[in-house]
């Protein structure tokens, strides 16, 4: 029953290392249906229904199901003159990239999916896009910034498509919003070392002078960092009145707590990624009240069906927030895929892929038309947390919308 301590330590080290590699084991069921002529058309999706990206997965699932349910309720999808039911085969990848990749392959090879709907974020969407390209089955994704996604394929994507905002445009919005408030134009940057943190941190840095701002302090830190004491002290000492942070939700709370403890109350705090968590002010015990975050949906953007989505989902999702936006985007890309299958007139993957390339029209997320790089850019806006809602403060034209409350209320 006893282990020598040196053996114990080796065993411990190996097992902890294995712990980094392994991840959650939960998975959803899968249907064994096929898309044989006349039978139901199978559309597959591997989603992060558990794990750290769960919020994205559940909202996308809601949007996908809504689109498919509408088609089925109307008698089915018109394919080559006959109405066919659509089966949505969703599996839970537990926010694990390897699992997402293998599930995407299984959805095509075992479950007979003729097309795929993507997960969210580059870390999941890129491996699923690779799987789709290898299986030669079309995939439409969203909630994945375009530049990071394009970087996932050196030769360009063949069967994978992405609809979301472009990092370059998104990283303008913080400065455009800051221009709406009187500040000393000094910026403190807090970016984690995830791929998007590195990319966006570089963009904010390089664009600061273009917009007339000075990066007074810049902190980079590993994901999961909780101890921000020295970084906040330095940011405060730099006199920065604008904070731009790209952090995961738990790290965002730790950062806000440290800022409050050190009485650092910048005029503007942009909390990207963390701030796109539904109900974030409540989760942070009010600290996130008044923080800002780039967004893909907000009341007042003038998107088609904006009000109907708000009335249907806002109360269920705890307000008008990014989660609601993810439902809208999920619904929209599912509609695009269904339209493409219908206009292709068959379930042949190549025909569907060609039809996706020709999509041009308005969807609830806005106008969509794919370029040669297989992307269709939407426009990021800026929102501010006011109670349960993320209120539009910078519109799609980069102009002022609702007034900005400053300084950051939760830190006062």
């Amino acid at each position, binding site marked *: 029953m006893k282990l020598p301590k040196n053996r114990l330590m080796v065993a411990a080290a190996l097992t902890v290392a294995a712990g980094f590699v392994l991840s959650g084991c939960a998975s959803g069921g899968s249907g064994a249906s096929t898309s044989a002529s006349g039978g139901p058309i199978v559309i597959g999706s591997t989603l992060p229904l558990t794990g750290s990206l769960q919020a994205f997965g559940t909202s996308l699932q809601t949007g996908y199901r809504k689109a498919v349910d509408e088609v089925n309720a109307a008698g089915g999808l018109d394919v080559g003159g006959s109405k066919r039911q659509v089966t949505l085969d969703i599996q839970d990848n537990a926010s694990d990239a390897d699992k997402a990749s293998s599930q995407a392959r299984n959805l095509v090879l075992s479950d007979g999916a003729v097309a795929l709907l993507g997960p969210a974020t580059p870390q999941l969407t890129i491996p699923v896009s690779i799987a789709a390209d290898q299986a030669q089955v079309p995939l439409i994704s969203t909630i994945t910034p375009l530049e990071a996604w394009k970087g996932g394929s050196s030769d360009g994507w063949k069967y994978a498509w992405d609809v979301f905002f472009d990092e370059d445009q998104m990283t303008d919005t913080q400065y455009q919003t800051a221009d709406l408030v009187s500040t000393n134009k000094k910026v403190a940057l807090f970016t984690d070392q995830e791929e998007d943190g590195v990319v966006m941190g570089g963009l904010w840095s390089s664009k600061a002078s273009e917009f007339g701002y000075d990066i007074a302090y810049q902190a980079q830190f*590993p994901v999961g960092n909780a101890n921000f004491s020295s970084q906040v002290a330095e940011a405060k000492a730099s006199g920065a009145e604008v904070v731009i942070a790209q952090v995961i939700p738990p790290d965002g709370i730790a950062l806000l707590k440290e800022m409050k403890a050190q009485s650092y109350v910048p005029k503007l705090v942009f909390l990207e990624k963390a701030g796109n968590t539904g109900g974030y002010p409540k989760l942070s015990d009010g600290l996130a009240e008044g923080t800002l975050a780039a967004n893909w949906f907000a009341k007042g953007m003038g998107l088609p069906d904006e009000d109907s989505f708000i009335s249907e989902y806002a109360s269920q999702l705890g307000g008008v927030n990014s989660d609601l936006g993810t439902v809208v985007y999920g619904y929209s890309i599912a509609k695009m895929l269904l339209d493409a299958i219908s206009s292709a007139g068959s379930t042949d993957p190549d025909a569907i892929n060609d039809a996706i390339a020709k999509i041009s029209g308005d969807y609830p997320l806005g106008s969509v038309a794919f370029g040669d790089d297989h992307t269709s850019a939407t426009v990021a806006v800026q929102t501010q947390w006011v109670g349960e809602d993320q209120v539009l403060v910078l519109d799609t034209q980069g102009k002022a919308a609702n007034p900005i409350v400053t300084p950051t209320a939760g830190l006062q």
Partner: protein
Amino acid sequence: MEVIVNGLLTGGLYAATALGLSVVFGTLRMVNLAHGELLMVGAYLTSVLVVALGGDPLLLAIPAALILGLLAYPLQRFVLTPVMVRNADAPVTATFGVSIALQSILLLVFTSNPRSLNAPYATAQLEVLGVGVRVSLLIATAIALAMVFGVHLLLTRTRFGSRVRAAANDADAAGLVGIDVKHTFAMVLGLAAAVAAMGGALLALSYSASPSGGMTWLVTAFTVVVIGGLGSVRGTLVGALLVGLVQTLASRFIGAQYSDVVVFGLLIAILLIRPEGLFTKARRA
């Protein structure tokens, strides 16, 4: 000076979060890979009690610790010890399974959103001799000191401690002299889980907790325990203070992106120079 004080206080919090791992490591000779999740469960349990009953999170962390301790007892008694008897290496794998199960339960019940415990002192700061000190870290350090000395006294000055040490040294011999080894081991995991629950509440007060956050805290606790010396409760305190100090100094003077490199570099250096850790005597041949 401010960096040093804050580093030591951060280390105090690390001591509170690593103590449970150290106790299990030192007595059961078991690497508890579910320790990070025990911290998270402790934080979430406290949060649930705060919502349900209202009141101060630190006070409600005490019943949360008792609940988690009671839940951990049968886990050791009826799962981990029987596994340990059959195969000395198997409990490590079993605790990995427990870790995954606990994480999944937290995700199912609370979703992936983080939780934070709030109190007036959670974001308060004190000025002591010109140095700004975060009150929540000061409290965490005080509680960590109390827990370290309490556990040390429990294991070295009580009959329970004698039974634990006897069972840890030679379970078969301990059984022959009438010690209920299975009960004793279960009590140890119960104690470690209760201590972990307090640590979880303290970290959620200063920072936040999330269902998937256990691994990060496990790695920190593991580093603390190895540096301090396997099974040394006092070594855990010193290891934690050292890790907190080195991490904060590295963040301040080199950059937070390199702090992990520096901390794990320290771990490797200590393992090379003193493989048994700072506070454990080398094994006799």
